[in-house]
């Protein structure tokens, strides 16, 4: 019995859970959800929602391109085609050197917004 409970709610026993007042009912769904998450991703950090996801937020938009690597690769493979990224163009890993063809084109929207479509509702 204790083994199973450990996952759900280490501090409480089943009996008490059932007798919990209206107030505590709010806590249980959250804890149950937490247990579900920990079961799926056991390596999820001890620190709840801590700096890891904050750091990720601060680094949004970071894309790396090393011009040195790129030019060296180009020089080495003068006559051959540079390997392209394949279907997932955004993923650049390992030995693959991103080429201008691989980088997603950042074009500005020359199209007028559809909100300004002009129909009178």
């Amino acid at each position, binding site marked *: 019995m204790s083994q199973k409970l450990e996952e759900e709610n280490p*501090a409480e026993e089943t009996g008490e859970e059932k007798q919990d007042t209206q107030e*505590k009912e*709010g*806590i249980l*769904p*959250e*804890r*149950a*959800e*937490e247990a*579900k*998450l*920990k079961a*799926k991703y056991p390596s*999820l950090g001890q620190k*709840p*929602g*801590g*700096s890891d*996801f*904050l*750091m990720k*937020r*601060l680094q*949004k*938009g*970071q*894309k*790396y*391109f090393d011009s040195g690597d790129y030019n060296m690769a180009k020089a080495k493979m003068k006559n051959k085609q540079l390997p392209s990224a394949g279907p997932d163009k955004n993923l650049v890993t390992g030995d693959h050197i991103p080429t201008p063809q691989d980088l997603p084109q*950042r*074009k*500005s*929207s020359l*199209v*007028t*917004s*559809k*909100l*300004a*479509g*002009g129909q*009178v*509702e």
Partner: protein
Amino acid sequence: MAGAGGGGCPAGNDFQWCFSQVKGAVDEDVAEADIISTVEFNYSGDLLATGDKGGRVVIFQREQENKIRPHSRGEYNVYSTFQSHEPEFDYLKSLEIEEKINKIRWLPQQNAAHFLLSTNDKTIKLWKISERDKRAEGYNLKDEDGRLRDPFRITALRVPILKPMDLMVEASPRRIFANAHTYHINSISVNSDHETYLSADDLRINLWHLEITDRSFNIVDIKPANMEELTEVITAAEFHPHQCNVLVYSSSKGTVRLCDMRSSALCDRHSKFFEEPEDPSSRSFFSEIISSISDVKFSHSGRYMMTRDYLSVKVWDLNMESRPVETHQVHEYLRSKLCSLYENDCIFDKFECCWNGSDSAVMTGSYNNFFRMFDRSTRRDVTLEASRESSKPRASLKPRKVCAGGKRKKDEISVDSLDFNKKILHTAWHPVDNVIAVAATNNLYIFQDKAN
């Protein structure tokens, strides 16, 4: 006119919300660029601006009373549209800068032209929107088509005259405030002095003068000396509507700090600290994430402020820091879905909130294209939906109900059937009238109170 069918209980003050207009395409396939990212009425409510992920701004203008078409009174039609921001790449930092418009804020009108500030992650721009309905004709040095005349051929002088022309609305960028933010800008707010404004990113808040683009003052800096020690970021900031020295900023930890610029040049030490005490026994992995405040808005009166966290809207009295005076549950039924909402990233969605003109009601969005309104005096609340199905002209909106569990009644929708891709993050309330604008992905809905 049909009586109030639809049943349900309107959100106090006897609001009876009706469909007015919807803007945008009907396609199932929504282009990323068309997703609306901000909605804002100007001070009079005559203009309504939207910004989208494609960096474009569309401004709608309210039609004046028209005898020929009596029911077009109060309708919003396109006034101006322009490309505010374009995608950029910062080569030095290998950083892609999105053109998405994060916020638009209007300046109070001082002359015939309209001014607004629009910002993406890195750059704020001041746009002037002006009307031109006259054109000068009869120049001496150039022809009507603009070609220069041969000066030696000019034998007589004439005075150019102004002739009426079709109304043209022009938008031009008057100021570009760039290079002041290392992190991503989440808020801009115009000061009540109408001369300065603030811009806030994840870790810093800067103060600008509207006339000066080559420098800004840093007034809040929460960047730790060692980034490993980073525990919270700034999520929103706003100036007080009347007190030009007061600003507030919210954090990812669910707190709000009020700063007084008179106390020191760098407002790292707050004057007031608003935080609701948490029950330590209820703490879970999700607690901090769902407490993160996604929006903070002062009431028009300046006496209260409202914060939006993942599951609720809280109204705070500026005189009381210990806890909010009101807490309104937006979608408490999601508490038992937090695991999947974390997995699909929805738990990080940033919902905004807004006050009505008299501060008697507040509104915020939810999922499944639902939005919620809370009447502060009657304590009544209502859930409404922005959908094409209820888009008949002047049709009353039927209140919606989500069934959290157990037996689902007819007309209720169960939590598991909610569409989490249909999120209403941005809503705006007309500053005076009961007219609201609701952004549902790529469509903009406008609803009006029947009494209007």
